[in-house]
């Protein structure tokens, strides 16, 4: 883990509570996240694990009824203390976001070029012509063919892949330092996915972006990330460098995720492994380790307390009581 001074994103003990009926629901319970400039972290997890909620908390995009606890520091600013005006200046300029479905993230009745221009004008106070020129540069940069003409397109006139390129152009319009990506390739075809990932990696190097990349696809995470943080029921249960986590998955949930992937060695007719059970109800989480009820290594002590992080290697840690007892080193290189 890097020291807070060198990191661009620093979240400490982040919690997010939503009002649910009479009570409240804790969707994120104590997430620590730290990114250096130019680094990519993949938040990996299934639906409802709190990865998108964590991402949105970094930008305070949740409705006011949601309570964010802990501390978030981005580029030296205390995000939770920002006034509404400061928050508007922060969003899109310091941190910007790309969304899962670019077909829904653009306003359908405005031209794409105008939607990019309005962002640039909002943050830099320049003229529409200058903002449009920036849009054109960005469209060329994300390799949209005949960019001049495409700027005048409405969202529905573009293909999914092109829309996501346009979304990336929009997100980078004001040269942000941090990019939050919320499953940006999930809605795309496999061939387009890899193009978008390659583009993101290229732009990251060029702009020195720090990226928080939310995905449920391990393959995508490996492709893009320097580090992987696996989330389960609102907690990061395992985190470490991409190579370390894949080579030496230590938390039973991470092992399950890796085992349940379809891969080339899978013979036809062979059963695909699936983690038994389903994710817990966050309104009534199980006591102790939230993965306990689904875990094949469950012992009585697991339900007593929430496990603390245990170091596996340098920078690689996991929350599991049984780690000391597991021969996790056996499949390490």
């Amino acid at each position, binding site marked *: 883990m890097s020291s807070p001074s060198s990191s661009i994103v620093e979240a400490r003990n982040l919690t997010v509570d939503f009002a649910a009926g009479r009570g409240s629901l804790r969707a994120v319970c104590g997430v620590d996240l730290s990114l250096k400039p130019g680094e990519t972290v993949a938040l990996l997890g299934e639906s409802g694990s709190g990865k998108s909620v964590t991402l949105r908390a970094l*930008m305070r*995009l949740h409705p006011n009824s949601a309570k964010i606890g802990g501390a978030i520091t981005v580029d030296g600013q205390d995000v939770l203390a920002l006034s509404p005006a400061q928050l*508007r*200046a*922060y*969003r*899109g*300029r310091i941190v*910007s*976001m790309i*969304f899962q*479905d670019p077909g*829904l*993230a*653009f*306003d*359908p*009745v*405005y031209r794409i070029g105008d939607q990019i221009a*309005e*962002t640039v004008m*909002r*943050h830099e106070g320049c003229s529409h012509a200058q903002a449009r020129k920036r849009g054109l540069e960005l469209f060329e940069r994300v390799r949209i063919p005949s960019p001049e003409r495409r700027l005048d397109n*409405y969202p*529905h*006139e573009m293909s999914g892949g092109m829309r996501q390129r346009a979304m990336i152009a*929009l*997100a980078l319009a004001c040269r942000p330092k941090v990019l939050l990506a919320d499953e940006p390739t999930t809605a795309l075809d496999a061939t387009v996915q890899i193009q978008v990932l390659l583009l993101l990696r290229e732009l990251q190097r060029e702009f020195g972006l720090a990226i928080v990349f939310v995905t449920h696809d391990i393959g995508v995470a490996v492709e893009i990330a320097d580090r992987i943080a696996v989330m389960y029921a609102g907690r990061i249960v395992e985190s470490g460098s991409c190579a370390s986590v894949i080579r030496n998955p230590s938390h039973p949930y991470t092992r399950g995720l890796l085992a349940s992937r379809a891969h080339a060695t899978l013979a036809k007719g062979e059963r695909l492994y699936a983690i038994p059970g389903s994710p817990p109800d966050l309104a009534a989480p199980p006591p102790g380790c939230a993965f306990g009820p689904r875990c094949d290594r469950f012992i009585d002590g697991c339900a007593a307390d929430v496990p603390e992080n245990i170091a596996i290697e340098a920078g690689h840690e996991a929350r599991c009581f049984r780690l000391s007892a597991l021969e996790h080193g056996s499949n390490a290189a």
Partner: protein
Amino acid sequence: MLRYALQRLLYVMPVAFGVSIVCFLLVHLAPGDPLTAIMPIDATADQQAEMRAAYGFDRPLPVQYGIWLWKVFHGDLGNSIASGRPVVSEVARAVGNSLILATLATLIGFGFGTFFGFVAGYFRGSVLDRLASLVSILGVSVPHYWLGMVMVIVFSAILGWLPSTGAGPGGSTDWRPDFDHLRYIILPALTMSAIPMGIISRTVRALVADILSQDFVQALRAKGMGEWDVFKHVVRNAAPTALAVMGLQLGYLLGGSILIETVFAWPGTGFLLNTAIFQRDLPLLQGTILVLAFFFVGLNLIVDVLQSALDPRIQRG
């Protein structure tokens, strides 16, 4: 754009043709002979036949329709049986009066309706939402002739602020944009505006709620846009549907205001229809309905074209 408008205009042709057939048949579907109403009871069979021949009612229906349509094409809707005056001039004056009343009522209703709708949609579930919803539901559900009578009782009979009936001083039936005539239009226009206000308010509330829940609104906030910018996007997204509803409301009010126009004795198409029905003045009835139907078709055309101009997703091809 122009091509789309012309194409839509082409589609209107068969609709207009159908409308003319329905209008024509209406007269012949009604029970009784259209002439019995104006003939003396003791008229002989010969006299009746002569009258029937004079009005062309002895010819076969398709021939009658052909002759009628030919005349309609030349701007001749026949003469009113009751007054003997040309139907065209009667209808034209009534349409003018109704148009003024309906336009004013729609504008008032649209103004208040969109306001209440936006407030309710933005503050869903709050007290403001419930208040706005209450007003709009009242607008849709209160009987309008009753509302009209209450308005007359309060503002004319008790307070004496405004005249209760007619379109102008001294029984004037030609509306003019001066202060005296304006006083006459206020009560019927306010009464009539309750209908579009309620409907537009409900529509806009649902629209705004739907738009605000869409991803792009969060995306707008994520790129640093303020609430005022978001509001502009919401308006632009809500406009096509809201305008379509407003256009249709204007159409309904043009022809569907019989009760209100009768309560206020407003010399418009509703009042004219009412008179024509009770006097069994079939040429007048036929002509009024035809003109109103064409208005409706034309209004739909305008709304369609406007919508496609506002919402790029509506195909122009």
